[in-house]
């Protein structure tokens, strides 16, 4: 049932609104609390959505600016909201993101903040970012927030030896892994954002109003003095990003790298680090690579020639495509709800031999994805748990990666990056295919 004319409506969206990305990014700054200037409903929905994935407390303050108050603007709501928040949470930083409503009436939050003087005696900083949802997805909101943080906080000065890393919307497990890799190379790195602890924390004895962890504001300030910025994600724009801004303002060199998903993309990543650190790849990681390739060989027949539908955030889709192509799986549809305009080019750049068999689709929703997938005879789907309705309809296995994972536990612990992440992905893909075959087999072999 493929509609001839493109539908005006989005059916089962494969994207979320920009303030969600903003809240996620702000969760990765130490002592920060996200604050939405907009309707209560937006904050409620976003909290619920994030909590169901991370299974951690996610507090999001909101100005409660409603349609009724649009006549006078939301200045009063904003000011009293900020003061309340400061009193209750004692944050070091409040990140203010706008929702659709104030953006539609053209409210100038920057201006409102300019005149704002906190009531209490505890000082806090504010950073604001404009995130109307009718202009971009949650990923755009995420990147815009990272950029706003850098632009409003980073300072220049004599260059120091550290590097900046903008990892993109990866999992807490990915962030922990990246930190380990940088440390193993002896590189002092500031990751922004870093929600590896704040959104994947331990049991507590005393409740923490703002969970511990995150990029310290101090380090954020020093980002203007780094020797280089690594911006991860092949679909990142070459203008208007955090790293671009640091380059033009403070002359911090920018280097763009793909998400290291799979061996080949990880090789490129490790080569770049090796060059920056001036030392070879640490043995631990070289060994992980060795074991990974060994496992590829052991299991190549289970996966070769299988067909996959890949969906999710654009950079993840690119990374997964690189990984699947290198193990001999044919990605037949690479889809995202995002609309960077750069997905196709990025996918083709990493797809190797698989390139001719791939349909790339931006601005996708799940209903359309299901309709297209039907004709492409895939063997499995790989992407977020929101693809489950399609997987169920087509009776195909879904390998859950990325964000969100709402119907399994452990979304925050999925490791996608590096040799270690590729190992987990590879085992998951292979075992899923074996399990399927086993379930369907009339014999029930117990050796595979």
């Amino acid at each position, binding site marked *: *049932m493929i*509609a001839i*004319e493109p*539908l*005006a*409506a*989005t*059916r*089962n*969206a494969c*994207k*979320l*609104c*920009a*303030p*969600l990305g903003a809240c996620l990014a702000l969760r990765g700054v130490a002592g920060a609390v996200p604050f939405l200037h*907009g*309707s209560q*409903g*937006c904050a*409620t*929905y*976003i*909290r*619920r*959505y994030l*909590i*169901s994935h*991370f*299974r*951690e*407390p*996610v*507090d999001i303050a909101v100005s409660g600016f*409603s*349609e*009724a108050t*649009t006549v006078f603007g939301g200045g009063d709501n904003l000011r009293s909201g900020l003061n309340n928040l400061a009193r*209750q*949470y004692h944050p070091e930083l409040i990140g203010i993101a706008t929702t*659709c*409503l104030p953006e*539609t*009436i053209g409210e100038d939050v920057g201006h409102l903040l300019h005149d704002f003087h906190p009531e209490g005696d505890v000082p806090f900083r504010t950073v604001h970012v404009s995130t*109307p*949802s*009718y*202009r971009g*997805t949650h990923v755009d909101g995420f990147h815009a927030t990272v950029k706003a943080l850098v632009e409003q906080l980073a300072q220049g000065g004599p260059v120091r030896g550290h590097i900046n890393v903008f990892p993109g919307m990866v999992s807490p497990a990915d962030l922990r892994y990246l930190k380990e890799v940088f440390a193993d190379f002896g590189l002092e790195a500031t990751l922004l954002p870093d929600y590896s602890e704040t959104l994947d*924390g331990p*049991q*507590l*004895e*005393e*409740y923490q*109003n703002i969970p511990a962890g995150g990029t310290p504001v101090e380090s954020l300030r020093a980002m203007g003095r780094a020797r280089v910025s690594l911006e991860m994600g092949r679909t990142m724009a070459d203008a208007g990003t955090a790293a671009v801004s640091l380059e033009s303002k403070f002359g911090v060199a920018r280097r763009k790298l793909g998400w290291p998903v799979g061996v080949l993309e990880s090789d490129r990543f490790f080569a770049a680090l090796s060059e920056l650190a001036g030392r070879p790849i640490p043995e631990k990681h070289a060994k992980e690579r060795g074991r990974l390739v060994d496992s590829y060989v052991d299991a190549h027949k289970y996966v070769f020639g299988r067909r996959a539908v890949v969906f999710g955030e654009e950079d993840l889709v690119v990374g997964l495509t690189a990984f699947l192509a290198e193990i001999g799986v044919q990605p037949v549809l690479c889809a995202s709800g995002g609309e960077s305009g750069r997905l196709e080019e990025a996918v083709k750049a990493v797809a190797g031999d698989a390139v001719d068999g791939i349909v790339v689709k931006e601005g996708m929703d799940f*209903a359309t994805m299901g309709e297209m997938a039907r004709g492409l005879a895939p063997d499995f789907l790989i992407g977020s748990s*929101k693809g489950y*309705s399609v997987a169920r309809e087509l009776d195909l296995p879904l390998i859950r990666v990325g964000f969100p994972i709402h119907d399994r536990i452990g979304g925050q612990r999925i490791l996608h990056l590096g040799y270690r992440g590729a190992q987990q992905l590879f085992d998951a893909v292979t075992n899923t295919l074996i399990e399927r075959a086993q379930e369907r087999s009339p014999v029930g072999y117990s050796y595979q």
Partner: protein
Amino acid sequence: MVLYPIADALHLVHGPLGCAAYTWDIRGALSSGPQLHRLSFSTDLREMDVIQGGEKKLAKALCQLIDLHHPKAAFVYSTCIVGVIGDDVEAVCRQVSALKGIPVLPVHSEGFKGTKRDGYRAACEALLQLVGTGSTEGISPVSVNILGDFNLAGEVWIIRDYFEKMGIEVVATITGDGRVDDIRRAHGAALNLVQCSGSMMHLAKQLQEKRGIPFKRVSYFGIEDMAQALYDTAGFFADKSPGIVGRTAALVSQELSTIMPQIAQYRRKLEGRKAAVYVGGAFKAFSLVRALRQLGMDTVMVGSQTGLREDYEELRELCDEGTIIVDDSNPLELSSFLQEKRVDLFIGGVKERPIAYKLGVGFCDHNHERKEPLAGFTGMLNFAREVYNTVASPVWRLTPRGAMRDRS
């Protein structure tokens, strides 16, 4: 979101994408037939639409979706910016309705703006446009509408089954497992049974005022409340349906005899444990306090988001002295109560779950995302099992606060 469970209607969110994406399939509202309500449709307004207005896109989206899915009716939910950009949603709905020959109803103020109460009211207003448009021929004088149950995890089926066993016809279930045609003839029922303090009260009141259909407030949760609901209804029909009271008593005692032995087992394990309750409506809170008492547990904190003053007075009376009563709380307040009161169980919505878990406290979801039916007599057994499963789990011993509780 109270209209979503109407399964053969099209539900289109007119606004930017996020609003619809967040509500896609978040409720376990089940349907025995069509599944159209589980799809999430949005006009996904973009910058150009915001500047130029979204009416054209809305009309096009509606027409295409109606042709594609053949719904019995369509609901259009306007989000907060639609008013600001000046779309005349009513006019578009009227046009499309005339063109496609099905009711197309605008729902104002649904969840994204205003309070929950405003949203409920708006939903009821939309329903009122449907009720009364169908034929009431053949409806028994012993008949009810079930209002305010969303059929989470199939709860409405359980309740419906009880009433049918008592010899009562259920005309429409609104909105759980709801059907447009049933709702159109809902004015033919003799009595409306309204669950929950909030969502469908306005509809019930309006139907009483305009059509003279009386209503009763009921709760299907917990043994006492469930039995009360059945007896009240039987009492109402006692003249018209001889023997109904006896049939009801038999039904209740039969149901009780199946569940009580198992409940008693759980009770032995749960006796004396402490619970905190924080749910949407105050009515639900009453039922929970009673149900927990049935399990031998003390409720040391109770609160709701939308309770009214009378509700809190009633809660005060119902609870023991020393029980903390909270109104419209926030995460910080809840976490400090949990620490202070050293509870074993927290009952709330999914947003509160991580707070409880972080502090080593067991948790049951009593809001819209639950997957196990908690209504009716079987529901009570499920509830007892769920409470037991979380309170008695050995994992708490490994957590710092659980260990603290063990020592004290």
